[in-house]
């Protein structure tokens, strides 16, 4: 419940993502009303029905393509209400090799992982400041913690998003608006389908969903899922550049 007695709401941007689905369900189980924004209406509808049937909470659907930046203001205006929490899980891994020579592909990775998420959360930030409350949650990636040969286009976009969220948090720390950065390591989802992932470092989408809910309930600013990733990335960041550049990572 919010202060005025209405049911608190969560908007998930990326309502078809496996992590987004799990997070929405975790929130719905606490009684939150859910809004799912997505570009693939059919999958979003399945996820919405699933959450509603399991929990009995109302779930609404809202069309949005994060490349369509011109529509962002109208999208926010058209929502049935200004949500209490906005979670952006949109992302695309892309293909690093292709992005090296195909500038269109590289641009798309940058736009989907940085430009779109940052701009849309930026709009909500202004509305939240005006209202005086709200929580913004962005899903980045450990790949943004240090650029590596195997995925630096994606990593750079995630790093940009991470820096944006950090700055926003810094700016809004005295207001009633919270900003949370979530950095998954490996997660077993559609994005990593068919990849061989190390079990100890790999989370299920449900784990990430609960970690997001817990981050909002607790006071965290930046959370790694699984937690071991914080240590792993600290070590990776500490490797001196002259050595790092020669490693195959």
């Amino acid at each position: 419940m919010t202060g005025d007695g209405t049911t608190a709401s969560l908007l998930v941007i990326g309502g078809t993502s496996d992590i987004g689905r799990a997070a929405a369900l975790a929130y719905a189980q606490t009684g939150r009303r859910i809004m799912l924004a997505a570009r693939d209406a059919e999958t979003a509808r399945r996820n919405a029905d699933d959450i509603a049937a399991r929990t009995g909470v109302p779930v609404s659907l809202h069309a949005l393509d994060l490349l369509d930046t011109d529509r962002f203001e109208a999208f926010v205006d058209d929502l049935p209400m200004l949500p209490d929490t906005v979670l952006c899980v949109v992302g695309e891994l892309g293909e690093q090799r292709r992005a090296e020579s195909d500038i269109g592909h590289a641009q798309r990775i940058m736009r989907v992982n940085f430009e779109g998420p940052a701009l849309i959360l930026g709009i909500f930030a202004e509305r939240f400041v005006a209202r005086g409350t709200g929580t913004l949650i962005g899903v980045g990636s450990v790949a943004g913690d240090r650029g590596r040969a195997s995925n630096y286009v994606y990593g750079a976009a995630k790093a940009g998003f991470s820096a944006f969220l950090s700055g926003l948090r810094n700016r809004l720390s005295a207001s009633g608006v919270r900003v949370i950065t979530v950095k998954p390591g490996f997660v077993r989802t559609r994005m990593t389908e068919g990849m061989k992932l190390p079990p100890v470092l790999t989370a299920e989408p449900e784990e990430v969903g609960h970690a997001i809910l817990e981050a909002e309930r607790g006071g965290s600013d930046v959370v790694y899922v699984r937690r071991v990733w914080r240590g792993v990335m600290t070590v990776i960041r500490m490797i001196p550049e002259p050595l790092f550049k020669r490693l195959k990572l």
Partner: protein
Amino acid sequence: MTALSGWGRWPRHESELVVPRNARRLTELQTSARGIVARGNGRAYGDAAVGERITLSTQGLDRFRSFDPETGRLTVEAGVLLSDVIDVFLPQGFFPPVVPGTKFVTIGGMIAADVHGKNHHRSGAFGDHVERLSLALPDGRVVECGRGHEPGLFAATFGGMGLTGTILDATFRLMPVETGWLRRRVIVADDLEDAMDALAGAAGATYSVAWIDCLAKGEALGRSLVQAADHAGEHELGERERAAGLFPAAPRGRLAVPFELPTGVINRASVAAFNELYFRKGAADAETPRLVPWDPFFFPLDGIGHWNRIYGRRGFLQHQCVVPTRTARAALADILERISARGRPSFLAVLKQFGPGRRSLSFPLEGFTLALDLPVDEGVDALLAEIDTVVARAGGRLYLAKDSRQSRDTFEAGYPDLPAFRELRRAIDPDGRIASRLSGRLGL
């Protein structure tokens, strides 16, 4: 290509496993392929869920669609697990109308095998509770089936083992329960006669089942523990139960069999020990009704992950037959004698009573069903062939979800509706797109 098998881990066949993310993709894959069959959670023991060439996993169809708390009516996609349904709805006071001996099965798999529970004598099979379903046919059409729509296809899909098409979603009703506890009574039966009488006598109970001590011989042949149980009301719970919860959660990951034990570990001695222990423990609290939590009552083996590994590299066989009431006594005595005489103990032997069955390839028919687990070794084929002959002569049949070896003769003798089923298959699938190892083996 991967080597796929059923839960019995034998036989293994090469088949390409594909995992579509939604119904549209699944339908496309099914229509563009040949030698394909659906696979749920792979809990059928034999070769039913292994495609001749391609195996179509329903794992991606894991969404709930709608639920009406007024009526208990639930619609889910076919790949939803029964364990998921129970996790979500038991705390809301609902339980599935029929459950098999493991909760790790999909709703699609439960329909395709028309599974039965310990309440068949009262509630029928799972299919009796399914109100409608949508079915992806091999020609690419998706049809809505129910009593008023496509009744022929609808009926043939229960027990049809995936061969009438792939179920995409289904609607059935959950039943209201006050608690997650059962009031259970254990009756000690001194021999087979006694066990069958006890089962018949317990017909008033919602659930009943007999665990047979397969090593007992002579006078004691068929010595059993018969359990009879009903859902407990809230007022029946004592302090202990309330402390554990009105709807106690299923314990998670208690134990797991970590690797394959060498074949032979399940020898006479270990099975004797198991049976003896079970018998004594049951006898100790016999007759006094006790409250037991739902999970170990319905799904005693689910607490042990990968327990099928105890049967070793060579795999094991599950054999389940049903014989009509009028021939049951003689036929079951004959079967148990053959097993105990050979000193080939079965790890588990479970006896249940069935009420009237339905048509087509659905397994249950009015009578008694005996389920045996046997490790594969030399001689097992001969023993089972003898048992099959006894079953066929008694007018009984074998359960396809547990079969990997019956002869076509046994099969054809057991299922009189087979010609009609074959005809329906020819009509909906003239090019023979849908084909499993089971359908190839039995000429379905």
